[in-house]
């Protein structure tokens, strides 16, 4: 039977059409979003230039990059450690921790912000804030970014550890390896793709974090102003072109990081010669 003319072929074509329509429509929407910023910014080039030249915006750019790098490093460390623990060990309460780790992903960002503020300002932990000056300061930005980033790192790393690591880790132990040797020499290298993905997602979330940062760190120009807060402040002052310019700046930086991540995560062994016999 000629499959290209049969009823199944029609069904295949319809199925493909649905997939293609979804891909085309969504890609168009994403390009339109970027295009809208370019268009608005293009209408007021002088205003855009004036906005980007502002010292506060340049400070916000460096603060955004700095805090997002710090919080990504912390998220990666904490998220990977907890994911490894929960994936490898069964103990009382591990399921509760597993559930808890998803909470920051599902909570509204504003709730995270207000919860952090209450924790550090309205509970007996206020002494901690008085000593270390966290709320409404740069550490507040890092804490707020880290909360969500860690949850994403945890989920990504745990899926990888669950998938393959348990078996080969056990075999490595039979060869005399300590748990640290197994983790550093087997688990982590075997999870390279997941680590890169975790870094990308944690950094992207941190770089664009707005709600918790605004509530917990405030929106003090030149002090706790990160780029998403800058967009908010420019919009509040009616400078739509300036807000669009900052958005484009964030899109550009995110695109560069995305390309770097894609380049880094390419497997160096895939292009090697040699096939199974």
């Amino acid at each position, binding site marked *: 039977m000629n499959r290209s003319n049969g009823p199944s072929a029609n069904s295949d074509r319809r199925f493909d059409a649905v997939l293609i329509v979804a891909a085309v429509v969504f890609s168009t929407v994403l390009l339109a979003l970027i295009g809208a910023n370019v268009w608005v910014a293009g209408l007021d080039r002088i205003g855009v230039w004036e906005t980007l030249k502002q010292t506060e915006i340049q400070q916000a750019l460096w603060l955004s990059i700095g805090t997002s790098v710090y919080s990504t490093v912390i998220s990666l460390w904490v998220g990977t450690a907890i994911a490894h623990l929960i994936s490898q060990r069964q103990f009382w309460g591990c399921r509760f921790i597993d559930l808890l780790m998803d909470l920051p992903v599902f909570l509204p960002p504003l709730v995270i912000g207000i919860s952090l503020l209450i924790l550090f300002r309205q509970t007996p932990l206020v002494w901690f804030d008085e000593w270390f000056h966290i709320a409404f300061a740069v550490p507040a930005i890092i804490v707020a970014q880290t909360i969500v980033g860690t949850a994403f790192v945890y989920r990504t790393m745990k899926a990888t550890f669950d998938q393959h690591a348990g078996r080969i880790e056990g075999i490595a*132990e*039979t*060869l005399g390896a300590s748990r640290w040797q197994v983790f550093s020499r087997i688990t982590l290298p075997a999870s390279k793709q997941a680590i890169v993905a975790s870094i990308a997602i944690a950094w992207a979330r941190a770089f664009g974090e707005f709600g918790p940062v605004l509530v917990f760190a405030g929106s003090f120009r030149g002090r706790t102003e990160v780029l998403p807060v800058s967009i908010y402040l420019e919009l509040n002052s009616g400078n739509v072109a300036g807000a669009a310019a900052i958005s484009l700046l964030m899109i550009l930086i995110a695109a560069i990081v995305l390309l770097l991540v894609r380049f880094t995560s390419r497997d160096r062994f895939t292009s090697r010669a040699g096939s199974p016999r």
Partner: protein
Amino acid sequence: MIELIDVGLQRGSFRLPATSLKIDARQCCVITGAAGTGKTTIAEALCGLQSIDTGTLLLRDQVANNIPVAQRGIGYLPQDVALFPNMSVSANIGFGLSVNRWPKEKKRARISELADQLQLNELLQRVPRQLSGGQQKRVAMARAIAIFPDIICLDEPFVSLDDDSKTLITDLLSDLRSKSAPTILVVTHQPQWITEISDFEYRVQSRSANTA
């Protein structure tokens, strides 16, 4: 050297009933039995990859129920080979030597010796996914015996091998027995390949295990 006294365990719907087995030092025991009777479970319990619910496991005349996997000193070839995917063949074979802090020169010489014995010389720089099933099995075999363990546990060493490779493994085991004389436990459903060099066969009875 190895003694299982009424060793039993339950994992989900699978139950290994009380099993007793004694293998003296330098003996070679072949474990056979139908699929799903618990042959691999016995091997994994011996290595510590499965914890025992009941009974006593003796290794080198010491109770080993709670000895950590890394301290059991058993060279183990798992049924699924489980090579380290991020490492080359050479690094896989040398992993046990590295973690046991062998000097570099000694380590290189040992890897080279094993590569010669198991015909892996051309494959040392490849990664596991570039190898066929038989090649992977030979690498896992080399990795298991690299540190000269005094107990070797091989789970289905002849599966996915052609006849030449099976002969290679048999010759290697025969060579090991004549030189370092480790205690060997082989789980297989192809006992004909090892009958000549084994001391006795332990058959796991299908009626004694309950699989869903």
